[in-house]
């Protein structure tokens, strides 16, 4: 039921919201998160971010994460779009939408989806610094902690 996309192209959040809610009047709230490329990381200027992924596994992992959200909350729709490739500062990286009859479910599912995606979907970020150096972003413990709070 979830709409899952992995693409190099940008996404249009307004259009995705419209698609999720079109013709429906059973939805009470839609939670949304948009992740974007920041121009600094640990105080260093970022020229670009490159997102690599594991194509055969990615959509499957995202579908499993969305299915888990649909199991935990009564969702009326759910969208996950993740971009891959080289992205400039300010660009969109990821979109999560979760619609429900009730706002608490929509907001919690949105937070759950992005937390789990950050620790369970096979994407890797490489930062290009302004001076030309490039380094793979290291996983953050806070992301693991954020995902772990949903295990309880």
């Amino acid at each position: 039921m979830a709409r899952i996309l992995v693409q190099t192209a940008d996404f249009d959040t307004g259009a995705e919201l419209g698609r999720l809610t079109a013709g429906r009047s059973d939805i009470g709230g839609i939670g949304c998160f948009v992740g974007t490329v920041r121009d600094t990381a640990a105080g260093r200027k970022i020229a670009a971010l490159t997102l690599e992924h594991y194509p055969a596994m990615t959509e499957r992992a995202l579908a499993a994460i969305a299915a888990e959200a649909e199991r935990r909350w009564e969702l009326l729709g759910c969208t996950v779009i993740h971009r891959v490739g080289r992205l400039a500062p300010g660009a969109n990286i990821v979109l999560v939408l979760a619609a429900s009859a009730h706002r608490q479910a929509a907001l919690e599912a949105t937070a759950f989806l992005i937390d789990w995606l950050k620790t369970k979907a096979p994407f890797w970020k490489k930062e290009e610094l302004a001076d030309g150096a490039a380094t793979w972003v290291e996983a953050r413990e806070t992301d693991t902690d954020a995902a772990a709070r949903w295990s309880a």
Partner: protein
Amino acid sequence: MSDALPLTVLYFAWLRERTGVAEERVVPPPGIANVAALVDWLAGRSAGHAAAFADRAVVRCAVNQEFADPATPLHAGDEVAFFPPVTGG
């Protein structure tokens, strides 16, 4: 003793860069029955492979596109992927 297993091995992010390989088909010798044994054997294939697997605590694995651990058993034809902890989102 188990038979030899033809496997497809994939590397992502800095594991790909260190091994210099994105994908390889390998037939490990008999006895390589799980992920841990495969890593031991792969690490001996080249200096790049040794560097990629130098710190196994930071290497993650998927078998047939599902997250796996060192004890996960392997079967002929499996797709085994190695990568760092994920950093998407």
